[in-house]
């Protein structure tokens, strides 16, 4: 353990003419719980997608462990083609893919993992529904569950709780903190509610107009700001 799990060196990302990330240098320690905070359009999503290898870099280098062990990922844009006749359970089970053996059915443990994730996010009674039949929050929960069951070392979530009700949001965040504390899972998460995030950690990554830096705010871990 210890050391950095993800290292960005002089990362530049651009869409066409517009450079969105300018020389980002970042070392994310193994086992961090790192919220990403920043204005709309500052480049949070772009940075996370660059780390996941979903956006090509114009310059620079990102070292990640993802070629060995895939990440759990909740995208910001929580859309799945509504035409596909797949149930919520099947979408969650997609997250088990890296863990299952080829050409085999799910084993007991994996089935339990997906059932537990569904249960925890309150989706158990909707498990047979189709993605298009879910409410916005339920869609989001489905994708969170998919990321959680992947059992990855790193979980990357882009505004995972934007459409959740307050209670669910707290549950999800607490669960993430718990995973982070107990199993040492690294969590990278974009969140807009700084106050809420500060209840859990005081180290965060601040993104401003394409520049990212890790900052620490006041040390006390108080519950109310």
């Amino acid at each position: 353990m210890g050391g950095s799990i993800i290292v960005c060196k002089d990362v530049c990302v651009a869409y066409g003419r517009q450079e969105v990330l300018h020389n980002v240098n970042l070392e994310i320690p193994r086992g961090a719980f790192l919220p990403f905070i920043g204005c709309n359009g500052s480049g949070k999503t772009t940075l996370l997608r660059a780390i996941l290898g979903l956006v090509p870099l114009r310059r620079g280098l990102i070292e990640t462990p993802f070629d060995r062990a895939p990440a759990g990922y909740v995208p910001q844009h929580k859309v799945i083609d509504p035409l596909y006749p797949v149930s919520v359970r099947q979408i969650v089970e997609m997250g088990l893919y890296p863990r299952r053996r080829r050409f085999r059915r799910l084993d007991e443990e994996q089935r339990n993992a997906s059932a537990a994730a569904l249960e925890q996010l309150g989706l158990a009674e909707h498990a047979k529904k189709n993605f298009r039949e879910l409410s916005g929050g339920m869609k989001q929960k489905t994708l969170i569950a998919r990321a959680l069951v992947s059992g990855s070392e790193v979980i990357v979530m882009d505004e995972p709780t934007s459409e959740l009700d307050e209670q669910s949001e707290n549950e999800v965040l607490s669960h993430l903190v718990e995973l982070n504390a107990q199993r040492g899972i690294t969590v990278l998460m974009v969140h807009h509610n700084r106050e809420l995030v500060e209840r859990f950690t005081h180290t965060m990554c601040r993104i401003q107009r394409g520049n990212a830096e890790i900052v620490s705010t006041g040390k006390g871990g108080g519950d109310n700001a």
Partner: protein
Amino acid sequence: MHDAMQCLYCQFPEALRAGLLISAVCAMLGVFVILKRAVFIGITLSEVATCGVAAAFLLGIPPFAGSLALVLAAVGALAIPFDNQRIPRDTLMGIIFIAASALAVLLVSKSGTGLMEVNAVLYGDLILASKKELAILFAVLVPALAGFLLFLRPSLYSFLDREAAKVLGIRTWIWETLFFLMLGAVISATSQIAGALLVFCYLVVCPATALVLSKRIKVVLALAPLLGMLATFLGMVVSFNYDLPTNQTICIIACILFVVGAGVKRLVSLSLR
């Protein structure tokens, strides 16, 4: 009726077997053809094959080599992921269709052959299937189907949510390319024998019926081939009894099944109120 069926089997055993096999495989693949919004891939590839044959006549190479080369090229172009493209996949398919149709005529107009001759190479009618063709069919379709079923999961995941699949370590481009290549091979092999229209029908109408009837992927993947085989069987019986062209009769039966399926579904959902 019983007599007719008996007769059908003893007169056209290859046609019946080939029809059932083609319909089962194509209908199953067709589910993904619809989901990937590549519905017209059947006739597009058949136009491309025509163009390939025309080019082969002009160059003096074997017709099948020409059609194979062009079909592979077209399929390769269609396997490109279209998420960030300015135009969707079906537009590219339309452009390929137009280019292939027009080029075929232009090539023919400059070579000595006529368009009819080119088409004759690709002509297929289920009822004329021979033993040899049945063997070719088995050789192409059975491995294709086996590969498809074995790799159903990563392919499905790649199609359903490409980015998530990538993050999960699935090499999506491999599965997409393999799927389209396999589709190209299956369409080429079956169109040769069953005719482009019938293959198009198996690829679209039967899976569409299954998709309308069920929202479970496993049910859909099982229902589509069953519907395809039912349409084939009924179509052959009807065409035999009423003296109608077989391919077209099967197509119409499949369309009738679709209408009936959609109607039943609608009635059921209305009666739930």
